[in-house]
């Protein structure tokens, strides 16, 4: 399919591109087209280049480009598959796919593991979890003393770190999240089910073809 460069991405995706993306994700052709409407609006919010920068991503989530958030940064880094500091439309769709209500549990578990493996070591280590906990507490104004934080970490690692080596590997993570499905709640965006209603302007640019369009003028 080739990479959509910044010039072509401003135009509505070609039918072949939409079909290809629909074929490899849980999205339909119309949903891919609706996602393009979303992508076009957020990726052109600061620089009109048809590529999504970290600042544009944060502006879309927080409505504030100055707000720096360790977790939003992490999600953006995972969306930035090509490691170019920007996300193109194809990578945006493929990355969002894991958040689709119909995406596989396996994919959700794998993505969440990478999300929390802050330093890309292949493990979720206790210091990383502590760092994330402190970031959350700072962000939310919930004040907890260090000994309480350690208690929460102890409780979590007793359950998750089955090998008791101070870190959680992919196998342990899978066991842990299956026992604690609430941990994966953030991995599903119900909004993706209603994407065509959320961004309806795709309807006027759709290149989708249905059998009835070609065979029946009466419909």
């Amino acid at each position: 399919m080739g990479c959509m460069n910044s010039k072509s991405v401003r135009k509505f995706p070609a039918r072949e591109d939409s079909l290809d993306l629909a074929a490899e994700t849980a999205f339909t052709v119309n949903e891919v087209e609706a996602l393009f409407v979303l992508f076009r609006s957020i990726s052109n919010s600061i620089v009109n280049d048809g590529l999504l920068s970290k600042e544009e991503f944060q502006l879309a989530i927080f409505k504030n480009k100055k707000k720096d958030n360790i977790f939003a940064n992490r999600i953006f880094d995972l969306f930035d598959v090509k490691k170019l500091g920007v996300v193109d439309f194809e990578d945006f769709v493929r990355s969002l796919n894991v958040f689709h209500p119909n995406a596989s549990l396996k994919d959700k578990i794998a993505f969440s593991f990478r999300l929390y493996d802050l330093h890309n070591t292949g493990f979720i280590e206790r210091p990383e979890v502590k760092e994330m906990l402190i970031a959350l507490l700072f962000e939310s104004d919930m004040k907890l003393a260090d000994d309480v934080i350690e208690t929460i970490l102890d409780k979590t690692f007793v359950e998750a770190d089955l090998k008791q080596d101070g870190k959680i590997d992919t196998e342990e993570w899978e066991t842990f999240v299956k026992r604690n499905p609430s941990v994966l709640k953030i991995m599903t965006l119900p909004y993706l089910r209603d994407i065509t209603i959320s961004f309806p302007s795709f309807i006027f640019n759709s290149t989708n073809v249905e059998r009835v369009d070609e065979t029946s003028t009466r419909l």
Partner: protein
Amino acid sequence: MREAQNDIVATEFATTTNDEEVPSGVVLFGKYELRRLLGVGAFAKVYHATSVDDTHQSVALKAVSKNKVLNGGFAANVEREISIMRRLHHPNIINLFEVLATKTKIYFVMEFAAGGELFHEVAGKGRLTEETARFYFRQLISAVKHCHSRGVFHRDLKLDNLLLDEDGNLKVSDFGLSAVTGQIRPDGLLHTVCGTPTYVAPEILAKRGYDGAKVDLWSCGVVLFALIAGYLPFNDYNPSVLYRKIYRGQFRFPRWISHDLRFLLSRLLDTNPKTRITVDEIYKDTWFNADGEYRFNRVLVKESECEKQLGRTGFKSLNAFDLISFSTGLDMSGLFEDPTGSNSVERVVSTVVPEKIMERVEAMTEEGRVVVRREKNGGGAKLEGQDGNLIGIVVVYQLTDELVVVEMKRSEKGGGFGGQFWKDKLRPLLLELASELEEPVSR
């Protein structure tokens, strides 16, 4: 009683029995199998269809010609109708499930109202009893109140746009002419002349701007009159005579209408929008409450994220990753929704025993204006206004043996009263629960 077609987006349809029109058995988008043609309008055809998955769910599928919409300059109307229906989730409003499109067509996939139009119910019986009319009118007002609380004014309420589901419950349809608060001019009024002549309010005819909520209530008055009388209060073949009657509020009550209903109708069909009855006043009306005070039908059409929180058992114990998932940076809903319409969440850490927290929440009923619905599992509660709209939810999580996290999530459905209740009652309770924890909490 039926009016000529005047709707731009054409969702008012003449019924048809021409089976040859239907490409029966056609499966659209691999999802919906067409069953029969329900109606035809200037811009669209509506079909009954069923989903091809295991549920075989019945839907109404509106097929709109893209060319006709674009050439007629009505693209903005179609988009507005979609965005309006998207924000309305109520048991008495037709639900829009999804929008599909091809090169030549736009398809609205909507809730199927198996009972057809309320118009046919009235036409078949001649007129309805006050009891039956009250049943429908209550559902209509509940739907209208919901629309107005979400900043939506229908502007074309009429019998033809009121459908019935298989259980005989009313469903408001056709938001093709509706307006949103964003269209209000600096004078605080709407200015577009629209609606169906016999249902149109006098202030629209005056062309000096109007309050969308008051216009809808006038139309509700016309609907209620028609249900009880079997004919419209204002009708004439000559449009100028019709408009004069509306402008002067000239109509006669049939002799069989009760005194209480006459009073309500005279308040609904008050030519002065400033003194016309409001939704809140209708809820207190004698006729409206004739068989006991009306309570909103609590069938949830679409469970909000706010409500899904409660699907857990007891006071859930939080692990580190549960806590981390509270971060706003992991909440990507900002990509998909306007932040003004989103739920606001506040959390505090407290040493108060979970059961005591829930008791204090349950005590906040404020003269019956708030209903606290404790979840069976005990871990949370829903707070609803008297109209059934969700004000917010409270969930208590166990953090350590001594500490809990109290989460209060305010729903955008709660309207003005919900916001006030949040400010005056819920937030102070939250701050109170956290008050002894000014210093970082230690074991």
